[in-house]
């Protein structure tokens, strides 16, 4: 099953299970989104629950917040992660704070699904990975699935969660295939997954960078370095325990994320590991993120901004002292 199909299946199952779940967004009904992730949804659930909105991201994100407070469990679709900027007041000042500001009286059980990731030749306003921004805000939860299996289980958990959850899907991964069991399952938010066990170096990777890390790990095998790949799956809540335990075991860690390195997810995770595993580390934690530039259009330029298997391989090799 592809990642896109896994997401659709999670939505279908949750919408069948709970009549309060509805989908709002641009071109989500008959069009099924430009990525066709939601194809077939409107046919089953009708236009009452699968709602095409005007191109008003702030407006319908806000409607999602109010709807979530008053008895629905909306899944708001923001076509490109770049458009999160338009929803920031609704998500950061409203959704994230309402539970706290009201002394715990109101809840905002909504999911905002959006995309991330470069390499689609879409230039600077359709390619960003802005999950670090959302992870910075108390009150929000942030999910980044890296496989079809995780995407399905995590989305189901996000929909059932009583908090606002931002769900980032890498556009390049929609066609990624992976096994998804027929039986029902839910993956709790805040639990990292060891994607590959290893002894010599821990590579923490998120979203599409998990595939990059796994590729690098295979290359590292060839020079006798055994890499452990860990996917936190949610940047908040963050499974600090699993990350620290792995770093303690291997004594070296690299963090790979497609967001910008500066003030970003790699910095946060690196400091968690540095603080938690300091006395077991043989080397400083390395960080690999997107180049600190707006995403360029031209293919060779764009490709150069994204962390590559080769870069992760080189970093691990240096860290392990093998030249």
């Amino acid at each position, binding site marked *: 099953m592809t990642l896109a199909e896994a997401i659709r299946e999670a939505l279908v199952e949750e919408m069948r299970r709970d009549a309060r779940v*509805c989908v709002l967004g641009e071109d989500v009904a008959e069009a099924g989104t430009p990525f066709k992730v939601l194809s077939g949804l409107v046919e089953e659930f009708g236009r*009452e*629950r699968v*709602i095409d*909105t*005007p191109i*008003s991201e*702030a*407006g*319908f*994100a*806000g*409607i*999602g*917040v*109010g*709807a*979530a*407070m*008053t*008895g*629905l469990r*909306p899944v708001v679709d923001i076509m490109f992660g770049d458009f999160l900027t338009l929803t920031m*007041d*609704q998500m950061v*000042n*409203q959704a994230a704070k*309402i*539970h*706290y*500001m*009201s*002394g*715990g*009286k*109101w*809840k*905002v*059980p909504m999911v905002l699904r959006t995309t991330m990731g470069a390499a689609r030749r879409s230039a600077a306003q359709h390619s960003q990975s802005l999950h670090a921004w959302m992870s910075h805000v*108390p*009150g929000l*939860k942030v999910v980044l699935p890296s496989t079809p299996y995780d995407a399905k289980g995590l989305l189901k958990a996000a929909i059932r969660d*009583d*908090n606002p959850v931002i769900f980032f899907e890498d556009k390049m991964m929609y066609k990624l295939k992976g096994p998804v069991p027929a039986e029902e399952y839910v993956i709790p938010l805040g639990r990292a997954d060891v994607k590959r066990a290893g002894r010599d170096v821990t590579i923490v990777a998120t979203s599409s960078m998990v595939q990059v890390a796994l590729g690098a790990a295979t290359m590292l095998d060839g020079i006798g370095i055994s890499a452990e790949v860990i996917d936190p799956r949610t940047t908040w809540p963050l499974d600090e325990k699993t990350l620290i335990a792995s770093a303690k075991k291997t004594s070296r860690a690299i963090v790979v994320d497609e967001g910008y390195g500066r003030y970003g997810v790699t910095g946060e995770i690196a400091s968690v590991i540095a603080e938690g595993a300091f006395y077991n580390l043989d080397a400083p934690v390395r960080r690999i993120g997107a180049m600190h530039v707006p995403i360029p259009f031209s293919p060779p330029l764009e490709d150069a901004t994204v962390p590559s298997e080769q870069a992760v391989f080189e970093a691990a090799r240096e860290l392990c002292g093998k030249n």
Partner: protein
Amino acid sequence: MSIAAQRPTADSGVESERLLRMYRSMIAIRQFEEQANDLYLRALMPGLTHLYQGEEGVAVGVCEALRREDYITSTHRGHGHCLAKGASVDLMFAELLGKEAGYCRGKGGSMHIADPATGNLGANAIVGGSAGIATGAAFSCKLLGNGRVTVCFFGEGALGQGVLYEVMNMAQLWKLPVIYVCENNLYNEYTHFSETTAGEILGRPAAFGVRAQSVDGQDVLAVHAAAMQLVNYARQGEGPGFLLCNTYRYRGHHVGDINREYYRTKQEEQRWLSERDPIKLLGEQLVERKLADPARLDGILSEVKAEIAKGVEFAIAAPYPPVEQASQDVYA
């Protein structure tokens, strides 16, 4: 200790009872605000607050048209809306003072009073910030078919926020039961609205085909009648409404805004106070129509004052939340 009191359903109460209830509710808001200002001056209230004196006719006229289970969203100048929708003065004051007994356990303060029991989705300190929430609540009500309506209170300053027009567009497209109540108190903080607002205000909802009307916000009965009409339309599934209430803010933008002559004259303030005060206007009507004599009105004032004083006392005596609560309620 709810000032708005558990009112009977609209048609069962006799007219005089209803008018006296509205009178009492306006007095309560006025007195509440006087005490809030006093708490600020006595340095008992942390931070600042934005007072509602002069605009009572809007909150009371509109909320009188609502049922307890209907929703409202409010603003930074929101005490009046919360009280008119049924909030208790003691829990309100406790929140203003940051006490654990407050509506939000002291975490929201003056600008964020929220109360599910009275359908109050929360006051919002982002200008226009609750437009989405109110419209979303109306979206729920329509989808769930629960017959409730939502009122979105905002000041004329929010007319400058784009999100208002985004959601008004959707409310009309989807025929949502929401009423946008614009309180034009003439000033966006310290700037006259004519300097910030092009064209006719009612032209804006009209552009979306939203049923809109303007009303004298100092005439609580006119506000109520207009609100009733829009609420009825919304409840019957005929879509959103927009009610422009022309009113006036007696005090400054916030309690610290004392010297206001650089943006408006004392004569202007005096004129509204003496000629257009909503409480005075209704009081005169009540006496004229022999629904109450001056002694009865004085009696209401003293009753309310006593109740407010008790609320203040309660709030002052109430303890602050324990520090451990700072990290609670971040997630549900």
